[in-house]
C-alpha cells in the first residue's frame, strides 16, 4: 500500500474533529500527542499537538487570526507557505509520522491557511494527498462559535465574514486537487454513507475495508447530540448584504458536496470571491475613521511610554569619545540596557 496523506479542512465547529476521529479509527494514524478533549469537544479534537503549535506559531508570525476575515490575509500566509525553513520542518515532522504508518490524517481548523505547504510536503514524501472539507451552515457555525468561544471579542458579523473568507479561499485552494466536500449534518445522519463516498471519490478503499471492531469504534464517536447548535439567520446580528453573500456561498458549496464535478469551472465561486473582496474593501473604507482613531490612540500610548524611559543622550562628549573606541559590529551586539548603564556611569 502506498502512502496517503488526508488533510481535513474547513471552518472550526463544522465537524472536522468528528471526521478526523472517524477516519482515525478506520486505519488512518492521528499523530500523537493529541490535543486533550474539553467541554467544547468532549469526544476529542483529533488534532496533533505539534500541528496546532506549529500553525499557531506561523499564524502569529503572519499576524493572521484563525478565522481572519481579510482577503489579504491569504497573501500573508502565502509567504510562510513558501518559507523553506517552515517547509523543511513540516516535511521532517511528517516523515517521522509516516514511519510505521502508511496513512496519516491531519486536522486543525488553522490548517486551511497552510494547505499548499502540507500538500507539497506530502507529495515530496511520495504520499497521495487528499483534502476533505467539512461543511456546516454558516449561521450554525457562527452561533456555535459565539457560544463556545465567547471569551474571544469577535462580533457575529466578523465571525460570519471570517467564514465567508476562509470557505471561499479553501475551495479555491483545493481546486484541481483530490478533494471532497462533506456536510456535517450528513455525517451525523449516517456516517457510513459519507465515509463510503469519501473512500470511492478519493480512491482510498481501505476506509471501507476496516475491521468490525474499528467500525464499531468509529460509530461510537457519532452522536446526534453533537449537533448542538441549530440556528438560522434570524438568530444573528449581521448585515443583510453579508448574510445574502454567505447564503450564496453556502449554496454553491453544497452543490459541490452533492456533485463532485459541479465545481470544475468554479465560475460562480470566482465571482463570489470577487464580490467578497470588493465588499470587504468597502467595509474597511467605511470603518476608516475608527481605524485611524485607534491608530492615533496606539501611537499616543507608545509615545508616552517611550518618553517615560530614560534617554541615552548620545551627544554627551565623554560618551561619544568612548563610543569611538568600540567598533560598530561590537556596538551592535551590546544590549541596550548595558549601553544605558554605561552611559549613566560616564555622566
Amino acid at each position, binding site marked *: 500500500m502506498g502512502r496517503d496523506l488526508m488533510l481535513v479542512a474547513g471552518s472550526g465547529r463544522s465537524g472536522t474533529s468528528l471526521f478526523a476521529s472517524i477516519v482515525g479509527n478506520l486505519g488512518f494514524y492521528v499523530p500523537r500527542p493529541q490535543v486533550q478533549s474539553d467541554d467544547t469537544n468532549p469526544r476529542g479534537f483529533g488534532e496533533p499537538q505539534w500541528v496546532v503549535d506549529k500553525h499557531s506559531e506561523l499564524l502569529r508570525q503572519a499576524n493572521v487570526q484563525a478565522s481572519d476575515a*481579510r*482577503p*489579504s*490575509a*491569504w*497573501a*500573508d*500566509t*502565502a*509567504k510562510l*507557505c*513558501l*518559507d*523553506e525553513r517552515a*517547509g523543511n520542518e513540516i516535511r521532517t515532522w511528517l516523515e517521522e509520522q509516516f514511519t510505521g504508518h502508511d496513512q496519516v490524517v491531519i486536522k486543525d481548523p488553522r490548517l486551511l491557511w497552510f494547505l*499548499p505547504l502540507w*500538500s*507539497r510536503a506530502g*507529495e*515530496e514524501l511520495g504520499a497521495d494527498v487528499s483534502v476533505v472539507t467539512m461543511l456546516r451552515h454558516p449561521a450554525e457555525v457562527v452561533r456555535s462559535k459565539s457560544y463556545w468561544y465567547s471569551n474571544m471579542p469577535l462580533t457575529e458579523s466578523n465571525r460570519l465574514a471570517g467564514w465567508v473568507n476562509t470557505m471561499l*479561499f479553501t475551495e*479555491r*485552494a483545493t481546486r*484541481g486537487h483530490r478533494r471532497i466536500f462533506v456536510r456535517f449534518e450528513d455525517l451525523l445522519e449516517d456516517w457510513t454513507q459519507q465515509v463510503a463516498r469519501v473512500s470511492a471519490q478519493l480512491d482510498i478503499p481501505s476506509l471501507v475495508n476496516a475491521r468490525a471492531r474499528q467500525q464499531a469504534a468509529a460509530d461510537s464517536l457519532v452522536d446526534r447530540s453533537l449537533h448542538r447548535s441549530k440556528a438560522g439567520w434570524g438568530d444573528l446580528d449581521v448585515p443583510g448584504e453579508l448574510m445574502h453573500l454567505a447564503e450564496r456561498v453556502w449554496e454553491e458549496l453544497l452543490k459541490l458536496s452533492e456533485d463532485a464535478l459541479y465545481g470544475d469551472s468554479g465560475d460562480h465561486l*470566482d*465571482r463570489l*470571491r*470577487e*464580490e467578497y*473582496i*470588493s465588499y*470587504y*474593501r468597502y467595509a474597511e473604507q467605511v470603518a476608516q475613521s475608527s481605524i485611524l482613531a485607534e491608530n492615533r490612540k496606539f501611537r499616543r500610548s507608545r509615545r508616552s511610554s517611550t518618553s517615560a524611559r530614560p534617554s541615552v543622550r548620545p551627544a554627551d562628549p565623554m560618551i561619544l569619545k568612548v563610543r569611538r573606541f568600540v567598533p560598530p559590529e561590537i556596538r551592535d551586539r551590546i544590549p541596550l540596557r548595558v549601553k544605558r548603564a554605561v552611559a549613566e556611569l560616564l555622566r
Partner: protein
Amino acid sequence: MPEESLQEWENREGIEEYNIHWNWVTEPSTSGFTAVLRVKNEARSLPFVLPGVLRSTERVILVDNLSTDGTPQLARKIATEEGLEEKLEVLSYPFEVSRCGPEHLATYPDSVHSLTYFYNWSFSHVRTRYALKWDGDMVLTPQGEQVLQDLAWQLEGIDGALVISRSPVYVESSRVAYLDTMQGKAEPWGWRNSPSYTFSKAFDWELRLPEPGDLIVKLPDFVCFELKWLDEEEFSHWSHPNFKPTINARKQREWEVFHSLREDATLPEGVVRVESPGNAHVIEHLRRDYASLRRKAISLGREEAISLGGR
C-alpha cells in the same frame, strides 16, 4: 489627464501599429497571472520551458523578436501538443532591440528599438490581474508550477509583487549539466497589471521595481532554474562584458562560471555536476527532481557535492 489617454503610448518613430494600448485591471478580479515571454531564437529551450508555464498560468503571451529558428511556430506546436493552445497568444515585435549596456543607454525609451519600449509594449497585452515576466530559458519545476497556481488566488486580496532568485544550469550535453548553487540576488518578476506598474529606463537595461507598500513575496529557490547552453554565445544580448560589480554581480558570476566550464577548468566553487540517469534528458531530470537535488547539493560538503554527478 483622462485615464484613456494614459492608456495609449506612442513611439518616437510614429509607427501607429506598434503604439502601446494598456489593458489594466483595476477592479477585484480572480483572473490570475499572464506570463509574458520575450524571446529570440529560443527553440532549443522552449520544449522544457513552455509546457510548465502554460500549465500554471491563466494565459501566456509569447512575443517573438526576429527569431530565425522557428521559435513562434514551435511555441504553437508545443501548446497544441499540451492541449493548451487556447492559452497561448503569439505576437511579433519586428524591430531590432538595443542590447543591454551602452547600446541601451544610447537609445531613447520611447523608441521602438528600446528595451523599455519593447517591454512596455509586450506587457500592455496582459488582461489578467497579474503580469508575470518569464524568460525563454527559465524552467519551472513541478513544485514551481503549483506555487504559481496557488499564488494566483493567494494574492487576490492585495497588491503583491513576486521576486525570484533563479540558479543557472549550464548544459554541456543531453546527459550532463552543471548547477550553480550559489544564491543570486532576487529580482522582481511578477506585479499587478495596473497603471503603477510600467517599465522605466535605467542605465544598463529596463527597470520595474515593486511599489512602496507592496507585499513582496519571494519565491523559494526550488521554483525554477535558468538554462545556459555551453555551446552557445550566452552573452550576445550584452553589448560589452564589463559588468558593474555593484549592480551586475550576478551577470559577472555567470560570465566567469560559463567560461570556466567552457574551458574545462576546475569546477568553480558552488557548482555541482549533474548527470542524467537512464535516457531522460538532463534538463528533464533536473526539472523533475530539482527541489530535492538542490537541497542535497547544498547540504553536502564541497568535495561530496562535486562528486554528486560523478566527475
